[in-house]
């Protein structure tokens, strides 16, 4: 999942970013409201974490602007202002949640999972396709009850395939949701990671679940023989 973090305080931004990356999210950081709008308009983020007090444009203005442009990615406000009126103003502007500083990374991650869950058809933190399970809280993947060791990026890619399952997803969509803006999408990084995932998930003797859909991309689904 790809997240936009808009925060003008460098230390806070780096710590939150590190926490999100450790959970397998791809993160882009904006340092002011203008940059946040630019990035959100240019990239398909799965969620936005916005500081309310930012240079150029505050978080509330950013959300109003994005909603007017029909960018409906879920938004969580991060702010030092804990006044009820401020929270009401933020939520009314179009935000989905509101987190007051200081906060713990685990609380932020839980709220992020919650807003992302609301976007999915299955509102569970345990995703399942055939005998493959993905636990979004424990960050574990199991196939036929056996734990599979995955790197952060492999986990993020598998999660994205789960979200779309049984529909296929294009390579472009995968790059846009699993990698951050820095990545040069001209590389064949998606194929490399799909190959790694297949080695771990579709082991010999097991029914293949990751399928190449020629001309479209990749799909995670159980195909009846």
């Amino acid at each position, binding site marked *: 999942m790809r997240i936009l973090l808009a925060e003008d305080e460098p230390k806070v931004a780096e710590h939150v970013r590190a926490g999100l990356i450790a*959970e397998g999210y791809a993160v882009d950081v904006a340092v002011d409201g203008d940059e946040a709008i630019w990035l959100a308009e240019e990239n398909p983020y799965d969620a936005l974490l916005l500081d309310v007090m930012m240079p150029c444009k505050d978080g509330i203005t950013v959300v109003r602007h994005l909603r007017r442009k029909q960018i409906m990615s879920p938004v969580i406000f991060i702010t030092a202002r804990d006044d009820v009126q401020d929270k009401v103003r933020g939520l009314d502007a179009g935000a989905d949640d509101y987190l007051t500083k200081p906060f713990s990374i685990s609380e932020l991650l839980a709220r992020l999972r919650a807003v992302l869950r609301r976007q999915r058809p299955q509102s569970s933190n345990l995703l399942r396709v055939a005998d493959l399970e993905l636990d979004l809280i424990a960050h574990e993947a199991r196939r036929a009850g056996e734990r599979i060791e995955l790197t952060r990026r492999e986990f993020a890619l598998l999660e994205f395939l789960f979200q779309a399952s049984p529909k296929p997803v294009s390579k472009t969509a995968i790059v846009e949701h699993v990698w951050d803006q820095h990545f040069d999408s001209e590389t064949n990084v998606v194929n490399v990671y799909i190959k790694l995932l297949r080695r771990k998930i579709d082991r010999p003797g097991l029914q293949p679940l990751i399928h190449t859909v020629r001309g479209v991309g990749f799909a995670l689904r159980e195909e009846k023989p």
Partner: protein
Amino acid sequence: MKSLRTRLTLWFALGFAVTIAAFTFLIHTTLKAELEQKTCNKIYPDLPDWKLHGSLTEAEVAEIANRMLWSALLWSAPLVLAAVVGGYWLARQSLRPIASVNRQLQAKNPANLGEPIALPEADYEFRDLLKQLNDLLARLDASFAEMNNYAAKVAHELRTPLAIMRLKVEQAGNRIAPELADELEGELHRLTHVVDQSLLIARAEQGRLTAMRSVFNLSAAVAEVVEDFQLLAAEQDRRLTLNPAAECWASADPRHLRQIAHTLLTNALKHGSGDLTVRVKRERRHAVLLVANRVKPGADTESTLGLGLRVVAALLHLEPDMKFQRRHGQGYHVARLLLPAVEQPKSFHAGPAAGQRT
């Protein structure tokens, strides 16, 4: 002689010396002539028939004239020296506006191209030149901004048709040949990337990107970036070795560092051959990121600035303390990025390690 200041100083001193020499020669010649003609007549009142005629001998005349000459030479030496110093000072003062204009022009970059050159105490002769120079800069700035805006607008306008084409290809995926669909998607993807990069460059050159400097561990940041590239290198049967210093703290915008590291590694993978080496080390006051790779045989290592390196150049404008160097030689290409090094902050807790398993 190359230096105008030295030339002016020498001309001034030479002019002064020639004047003194001419003056001395004139006095010497006149004095000598006068002394040679000088006679004295003495009359004795008691002896009216007696009259004494006297004059200086040639040796006496020569001695007096030489004394005068030496005296003139003795005095003119320090005067000529003073003229050299005075000439140097005058030349320096006169050329100060040129040095100032030179300094201000050297500091010009796309962000401040339109700011006029300031010479508050410019002489009359310089004012007209300065006006022409500032008008030229204003015209350049306007053209540059127009070109930038146009590039940004074109890139932005391309996004909508690209998005439509992408949707169409995805929708038509099962009606057209899969190979063609794959190829179209790949090309659309590449074009989208070019548009994204162009927009980033335009934004940076318009001064609309902000640097958010902070202290971070360069080794950890580079390790995070290298992770994917190690897999990509292995896919090409190449090895990417990372030799990070245990901890190397730097002060810069870590987002820009990551973007630059991505670009350097992408270029090394695309345009290089053989194994790649990435090194992070501390060199005196700098934290250094080094990316080295073999050059593909026949590759043009001095080719024009590519899109990736244009991104690097645009980001370096935002980070004046970062330095970027490239070297080619003996079949190798080495890119070095120098960041201001800092000591590890006491309160810093390192973020999660790259490659951490979930």
